[in-house]
């Protein structure tokens, strides 16, 4: 899987939870302050990502994920672990 595809898929999923178009979502944006997510919806997003990418992510793994870029990085790390 190539990097742009992962980013595109992550951003597409985020766009399903916030009223912001995919093309307007940028990696540096913060899930809560910039995209208006709260603690529940941001955790819901990470949960959706884990299901969509079939990743075995634990609750403790997402404690420090606050931005779109960190979300993408989390997916990449766990995809790499899965492939290893």
């Amino acid at each position, binding site marked *: 899987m190539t990097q742009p595809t992962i980013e595109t898929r992550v951003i597409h999923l985020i766009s399903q939870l916030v009223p912001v178009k995919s093309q307007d979502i940028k990696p540096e944006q913060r899930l*809560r*302050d910039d995209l*208006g997510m709260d603690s529940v919806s941001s955790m819901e997003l990470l*949960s959706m990502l884990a299901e969509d990418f079939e990743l075995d992510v634990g*609750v403790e793994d997402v404690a420090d994920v606050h931005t779109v870029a960190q979300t993408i990085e989390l997916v990449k790390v766990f995809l790499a672990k899965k492939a290893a």
Partner: protein
Amino acid sequence: MPSDVVAALTEQTRRYCAKEVNAQAIDAAAKIPKQVLDGLAELGLFGITLPEAHGGAGLSLADACHVVDEVARFDRSVAVSVGLHLGLGTRGLVRYGSAGQHAQWLPALATGQTIAAFSTTEPGAGSDLSSLRTVATEKGEHLSVTGEKSYVTNGAFAGLFTVAVSTPGLGGAQRGQSLVLVEPKDRGFTVQREEHKLGLKGSSTTGLLFEDALLPRERLLGEPGQGARMLQHILSWGRTLMSAGCCGAAAFAIDKATEHTTQRTQFGRPLFALDVVKERLARLRARHFAMEALVQATARKEQDEALAVSSLAAKVFCSEGAGWVADEAVQLHGALGFIEDTGLALVLRDVRVTRIFEGANDVLLTHLGTSELARRAQEGPKHSINELESALADFAQSLSSKYKLRVFRTPRLLHALGIATEWVMASRAATERAHESQSASHLAMARLIEQEARVVVAQAAAVSADDSLFHQVLGLERPGATS
């Protein structure tokens, strides 16, 4: 324990309310007499949490909770009006306002000459602050506000409104919210009619209409686009003060129930002599003790980020507690409790809304459960100090292990964890307060609450993600279907 200053103010408030506040008359008229509000203003109640530099008393959140608790023992409508002014109404201005905004509005707010109101809820957005549809856009040197707000406490007589609006693009946040200060005289702004309510009839509840209302840019409160963060702090204050009001309502109901059961004779002896009545009264007092302990423990965190989570627990525990206490007090009165003259029917009606406003309890419990899981994930495993704390830790751990991240997409599980968390926090606060006082009755009440909390945690931990029975009952085609 309140300081001498606060104890004296609370005593003054008690004397004034006993003489001048008639809850049944306020309920019947659906209005608080102006002289009552003026009298409370003369006592200085509207300025107790405002800065001394602007005419306030500069008291703490914990101090204000003592005062609001006292007022609620006499009338909940008055308590809500005062508590709203001290919390949601002025907290944003005090914390985030500029020097110019402070100078312009705080002096009149401190004397009660101006009453404050606060508004987030909209016809299409209740507890979900991210769905605000009232929008403020830049128009030259002004902000143009368009939209509608609902259920605004103090709406009819407020002189200043703190209003949450959506401000897309403002401050760099694409979908941020901001807070704006609005005055009744602002062009394009209308306060709508009074709502007719089940309880709290004396308090004013109105809608607000913004039709291209033009506000000077200086009306923005704090950083543009940072409304969500500011709201978290403001709502934490509001929920804590509202919880204090619930304590006062419960105290009134318990006083009435104690008075009735010690005076009323049945089967040749006072009701109080019956074991079942004694147990009920003991449980009512224990719940009230835990409610007050949790409110004070929460209020002492006013400078701490932990205030947000603690205020969620206090709001849910105290509003549920006030409803339960009022209902039990009615039951202990028998048929008399159903008669308005007793005053308990009014309490029952008044406290019902506390489970709904300032965040519906079910929503807050889901947030509390989410926060608890996130906190444990960040802090890592910790040694639990007692059996109850261990039971909560085991419950949280079992959810994380069994469901992993899916738990965050299953609100029922988070809700159950929220209930368990709320009770453990209340039990912890009650135990700490009892240990501080070393009073035998306090220690016994803390033990009773701990026993109840263990049952609540065990019940909550029995929750299952399997919702197939619910779907079958509702006739849904397959488990997981939403329509």
